[in-house]
C-alpha cells in the first residue's frame, strides 16, 4: 500500500507504471459483433472447439510471466495435464522446454504456444498458452509473445517474492495492455510466505491482497481455479473477421525436417491452407503448405481465425524470411497497415570465434550458416586475427545467447573454439566528423578521435534493503548513475540505474550475486548510448601487438586491465629462449609491463640407456604440440595460453584504477 506511494518520485517509465484494470475499451470491442460463420454459442457446450471455427469470445490468449525459477514451466506442465492435453504418463517435467540445452540448463529459450481445451460453466473454451523466454537476452522475443496475448499470469514464488524479472516482465505486459492475474506459486513450500508476498504483489499492481491466487505447480493445488480465473478475467481477443488478414509472428523456429515453423497470432481475417501469404516487412510471398495448432504436438487444421494462435509452414529454410514481429497477410487481399512493433533484432555483444584447429574453419562457417537458420539474431562476418588465424566476428543478443551459440557449435558440430573477450559496439567519431562503428577492438581507430559513444542500459536491481550500500558501491565501480530507488516493502528495495552495457554484460550479475549473498536480482534493457572516455588497451609481446588481447575500456580502468592481462600472460606463456617483455599500452604509452625471463635449460639430461624410442617419442610429442602453438613475432604462444587468457574470469579487473 505504502509501496505505491513510495515509488512516485523519480519514476522514469511513467507509462508502464499505471495500474492495470482499465480494460473497458477492449471489453466493449469484444462485444461488438459475432461473425456469421461461427455456430450459435448454445450448441458449443461439450463439443471441443475446432480451430478456424472458434468464436473469439471462447478464446483466451495468455502467457505466464515470472522471474527465472519461480515455476513457470512447472505450472505450464500442470495446465497441460489439467486440460487433458498431455496424458499423465506422457508427462515429463518442463514439457515445453524442448531444446536439449534448455532442458539441461532449466531455462526456456524459445517460446511455444499450446492450445488447450477447457470447460467452464458448462461451456467449452480454448486457452492458448504462450510460453515466453525469461532471460534478458531475449527481451524482444518476450515482448512479441506478450503482444500475442490479452492477459498474463504474473507468477511469483511465494518463498522469494518479487524479483527483477518479475518487474521487467510485468512492465512489458503493462505496456502491451494485458490483464494481469497475480499468482503466488509454490505454496506447498514450508518457507512460503504467501500473505507477505500477496501484500507486496497487491501493492505493485494495485489490487487487493485477496485478489492474488495461490497455487502450487508441484502439487497442482489451485491450478483449476487459476484456469477458471483466466476464463473469467482475461478478455477475449477482438478483431475484424472480414478485414484483410493480419497475423503477428511471435516466434519462428527452424526444424530440419519441415523447414521454418512460424508461430502466429491472427488479429484480423483468417489464414487458410494453400493460400499465398506475404510478409509485410519484406514483401516476400510464400505458399502456406501447412497450418495448424500445437496441442502440444503440431496438429494440422483448416485454418486460423480471429484471435487464434497456431503455426504456419511455408517451406522457407531460414528464420530470417519469417521474422519475429513481422505481420503476415494474404497476398491476394493484402492489409495496408502492418501490426506495430516489428524491429530487427540487434546484436548487443560481439566476440571473435576461432577454431582451435585452423583447418576447421570451413566447418565453423557451415555450422554458423546452419544455426542462423534458427536464430534471426545471430549475425557474423569473417575476420582474421594475426594471433588466432581465420574466424568470425559474431554478434549476440547477450552473454547467454553467446554461451548458447558457442555450446551448440561445440556440441552439435564437434568444434573446439576460442572466443575472444566479448565487447559491445562503439560509435567512434573522428576529428573530421566521420563515424566508425567498432565491433572488434582491433578496429578502434588509431588517429585523432573526437568522441566515443558506448551503449547504455537502464537496469533494475531488486534486493533486500540491507544490501543498498553494497549495490551502490558495485554500480559506482561500474560507472553507473542512480536514477531512482523505491521500497517495495520496508525490507525490499528496487534500484534503478543507468549503466554502460559493457560494464554489466560480462560478470556484473555474478558480482551482484556475490555482494548480496545471492539475494539480488537484475534486469536491464537497452537505453541508447552515451559519450564516454574510452581507450583501447593493446597488449604487446616483445613489441608485437597481439590483436586478440586488445580491449576497449574506460580510461580509469585501463591500468587495471593492463596489469591484470600482463601478469596473466606472464604466468601462461612458457619461457622462451630469450627474454620476452609483455607490455600493455594505450597508443604508444606503456601503462604496464611484465617480463617472461628467458629459459635457461630445456635439455633432457638423464640417462635413458638404450631406450631411444622414449626420447624420440618425447620429441614427436613436441612436434605435435608445435601445431598448437601460435607465433606472435618470434614468441611461441600455446593455444592453451590464449584460451586461458581469454577466459572471462581471467580478464575482468575486480577494482578500477590504481
Amino acid at each position, binding site marked *: 500500500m505504502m509501496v505505491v506511494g513510495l515509488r512516485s518520485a523519480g519514476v522514469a517509465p511513467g507509462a508502464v507504471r499505471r495500474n492495470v484494470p482499465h480494460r473497458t475499451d477492449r471489453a466493449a470491442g469484444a462485444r461488438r459483433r459475432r461473425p456469421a460463420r461461427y455456430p450459435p454459442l448454445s450448441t458449443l457446450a461439450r463439443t471441443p472447439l475446432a480451430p478456424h471455427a472458434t468464436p473469439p469470445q471462447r478464446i483466451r490468449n495468455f502467457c505466464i510471466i515470472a522471474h527465472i525459477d519461480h515455476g513457470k514451466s512447472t505450472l505450464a506442465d500442470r495446465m497441460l495435464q489439467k486440460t487433458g492435453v498431455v496424458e499423465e504418463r506422457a508427462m515429463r517435467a518442463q514439457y515445453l522446454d524442448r531444446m536439449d540445452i534448455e532442458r539441461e540448463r532449466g531455462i526456456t529459450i524459445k517460446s511455444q504456444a499450446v492450445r488447450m481445451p477447457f470447460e467452464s460453466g458448462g461451456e467449452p473454451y480454448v486457452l492458448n498458452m504462450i510460453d515466453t523466454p525469461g532471460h534478458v537476452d531475449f527481451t524482444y522475443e518476450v515482448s512479441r509473445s506478450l503482444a500475442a496475448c490479452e492477459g498474463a499470469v504474473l507468477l511469483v514464488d511465494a518463498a522469494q517474492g518479487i524479483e527483477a524479472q518479475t518487474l521487467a516482465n510485468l512492465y512489458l505486459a503493462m505496456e502491451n495492455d494485458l490483464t494481469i492475474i497475480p499468482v503466488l506459486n509454490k505454496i506447498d513450500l514450508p518457507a512460503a510466505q504467501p500473505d507477505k508476498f500477496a501484500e507486496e504483489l497487491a501493492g505493485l499492481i494495485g489490487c487487493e491482497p485477496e485478489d492474488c491466487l495461490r497455487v502450487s505447480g508441484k502439487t497442482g493445488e489451485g491450478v483449476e481455479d487459476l484456469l477458471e480465473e483466466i476464463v473469467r478475467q482475461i478478455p477475449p481477443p477482438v478483431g475484424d473477421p472480414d478485414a484483410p488478414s493480419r497475423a503477428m509472428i511471435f516466434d519462428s523456429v527452424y526444424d530440419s525436417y519441415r523447414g521454418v515453423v512460424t508461430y502466429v497470432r491472427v488479429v484480423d481475417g483468417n489464414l487458410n491452407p494453400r493460400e499465398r501469404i506475404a510478409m509485410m516487412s519484406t514483401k516476400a510471398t510464400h505458399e502456406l503448405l501447412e497450418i495448424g495448432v500445437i496441442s502440444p504436438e503440431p496438429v494440422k487444421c483448416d485454418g486460423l481465425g480471429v484471435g487464434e494462435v497456431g503455426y504456419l509452414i511455408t517451406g522457407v529454410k531460414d528464420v530470417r524470411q519469417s521474422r519475429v514481429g513481422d505481420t503476415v497477410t494474404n497476398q491476394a487481399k493484402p492489409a495496408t497497415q502492418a501490426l506495430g512493433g516489428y524491429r530487427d533484432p540487434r546484436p548487443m555483444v560481439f566476440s571473435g570465434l576461432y577454431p582451435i584447429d585452423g583447418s576447421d574453419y570451413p566447418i565453423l562457417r557451415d555450422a554458423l550458416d546452419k544455426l542462423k537458420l534458427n536464430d534471426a539474431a545471430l549475425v557474423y562476418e569473417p575476420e582474421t586475427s594475426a594471433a588466432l588465424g581465420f574466424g568470425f566476428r559474431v554478434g549476440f543478443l547477450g552473454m547467454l545467447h553467446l554461451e548458447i551459440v558457442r555450446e551448440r557449435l561445440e556440441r552439435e558440430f564437434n568444434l573446439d573454439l576460442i572466443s575472444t573477450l566479448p565487447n559491445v559496439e562503439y560509435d567512434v567519431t573522428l576529428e573530421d566528423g566521420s563515424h566508425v562503428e567498432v565491433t572488434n577492438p582491433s578496429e578502434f581507430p588509431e588517429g585523432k578521435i573526437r568522441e566515443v559513444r558506448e551503449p547504455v542500459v537502464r537496469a533494475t536491481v531488486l534486493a533486500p534493503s540491507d544490501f543498498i550500500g553494497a549495490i551502490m558501491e558495485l554500480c559506482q565501480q561500474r560507472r553507473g548513475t542512480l536514477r531512482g530507488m523505491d521500497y517495495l516493502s520496508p525490507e525490499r528495495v528496487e534500484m534503478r540505474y543507468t549503466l554502460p552495457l559493457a560494464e554489466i554484460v560480462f560478470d556484473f550479475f555474478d558480482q551482484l550475486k556475490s555482494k548480496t549473498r545471492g539475494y539480488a536480482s537484475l534486469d536491464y534493457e537497452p537505453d541508447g548510448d552515451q559519450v564516454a572516455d574510452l581507450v583501447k588497451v593493446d597488449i604487446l609481446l616483445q613489441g608485437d601487438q597481439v590483436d586478440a588481447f586488445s580491449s576497449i575500456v574506460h580510461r580509469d580502468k585501463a591500468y587495471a586491465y593492463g596489469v591484470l592481462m600482463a601478469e596473466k600472460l606472464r604466468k601462461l606463456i612458457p619461457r622462451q*629462449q630469450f627474454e620476452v617483455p609483455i607490455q600493455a599500452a594505450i597508443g604508444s604509452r606503456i601503462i604496464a609491463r611484465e617480463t617472461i625471463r628467458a629459459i635457461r635449460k*630445456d*635439455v633432457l639430461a638423464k640417462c635413458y640407456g638404450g631406450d631411444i624410442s622414449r626420447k624420440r617419442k618425447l620429441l614427436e610429442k*613436441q612436434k605435435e604440440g608445435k601445431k598448437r602453438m601460435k607465433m606472435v613475432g618470434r614468441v611461441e604462444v600455446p593455444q592453451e595460453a590464449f584460451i586461458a587468457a581469454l577466459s572471462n574470469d581471467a580478464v575482468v579487473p575486480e577494482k578500477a584504477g590504481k
Partner: protein
Amino acid sequence: MPRLPDGDPAPADGALDAQALAGLAGVPFGMYLHVPFCATRCGYCDFNTYTPRELLAPTRATPGATDPRAGLPSLVASYTDAARAEIDLAARVLGADAPVVDTIFVGGGTPTLLPTAELTGLVGAVRDTFGLRPDAEVTTEANPDSVDEASLAALAEGGITRVSLGMQSAVPHVLGVLDRTHDPANVARAVRGARAAGLAVSLDLIYGTPGESLQDWRASLEAVLALEPDHVSAYALVVEEGTALAARVRRGAVPAPSDDDEADKYELADELLGAAGYDWYEVSNFTRTSRGRCRHNEGYWAGGNWWGIGPGAHGHVGGVRWWNVKHPARYASMLAAGDSPAAGREALTPEQRHDERVLLGVRLADGLPLSDLDARGRAAVAGLVADGLLDPGAALGGRPAREGGEAQRRAVLTLRGRLLADTVVRALLGF
C-alpha cells in the same frame, strides 16, 4: 616405471629381416645386459627394477622379510638361466651375420647384487657365444655399497674392464632425499678398490635434488675430483611420473627441481670439471681423454647396433628397435618356452631415423655434420649461431667451400646450447 613404447608386435622367434641384418656390417656391436634387481628402490628411480620382496611376496605381510636379499638366490638362478637363453636366441637370430662384440654394458637395477661369479658368468657367456674383441670395453654399474676390494678384483678377473658407480652426491642430506642408503665414505673405498683391480672408473652424479644448494653441489663435484675418476656422468634430476619422489613433490613435501637452479649447477659442473681437465663429450658426460669415453654409450648415440639382454632391455639392429617384456617372471617364462621375450618393436621410418640422428648427434661434443641435416635444418643453423647456441667456428668456419670445407661443418653446441639442446634439436628438425 615408464611404460614400454607402443610399437608393432614382435615375432615369436625374434627374427630380423635381411635389411636390418645388413645394417650390422662394419658398425661396432654392443651387448647390454639388464639386471632387474635392487635391494631397495630409490624414490626418484623409474628404471625396470624390482626388490626381491616385490618379486617373491605378492602379499605384503611376509613374516621375517627384514633381510632385503632374502630369496634372491632363486631369483638370480631363474634370471641367469633366462639371460643365457636370450644370448643363445640372439646368436640364432643374427646367425651368420653375428658380429664380434665390441662393448658390453651390465646395467640395472643393481648388477652387483648378483654374486660376482654369476655376473662374470654372463659376460663369459657373451664372449663364448659371439666372441669379444681384445680391446673390448666391459662395464658394469655398481652401487658403492654392493662392492668391496675382493669383489672388484673378482670382477676384473672375470673380464670386467670398467665400473660405473652410482655416487649421486657426496652430501648426506642430499643422499637422504634421494633415498640413497650408501655411506659416502664407501664411494672412496670402492674407487680405490676398482683402481687396485685395474678397472676404469666412472662416477654418476645427480644435480638439482630438492634441498641441494649450489654449495652442496660444489662439494659433490669437489669430492668427485678428489677421487680422480676416469669418467663423470652428471644428470639433472628428473621427477618421473609414478615415483615416490613425484608423489612427494605433488603433495608439496619437497619442492620441484627448478630449471634455473639446474642450469646454474650444470654451469658450475662444466666449470669445475673443465678446470680439472674433464671435458664434455656428451651433454651429461665428461672425461679427461677421449679414451676415457664410454664406447658402449657412444654406440647408442651414434645409431650403432646392440642387443639388449634381460627384462625390459632395448635393442637396435639396422633401423629396427625392440624391447623386452618388463617383468622378470614373464621374461623367464617366455624364454623357457623357446620364444623371444620381445614385447614390441618398431622399424624406423626414414623420418624417424633422421629425427633420432639429429636428436642424439647434436648432444655430442663431436657435433652433427651439417650434411646430416635437411634443408630446413641447415637454414636454421645461422640463427642458432646468432643466438649463441651453436659454435660459430664449427658451424660456419672450416676451409672454403671449393676445398670441401662445407663437408666438415658441424653443429656443435655451445655451453648455452647444451642447456638449451631441446630448442636446438627442434630448430634443426625444422619445427
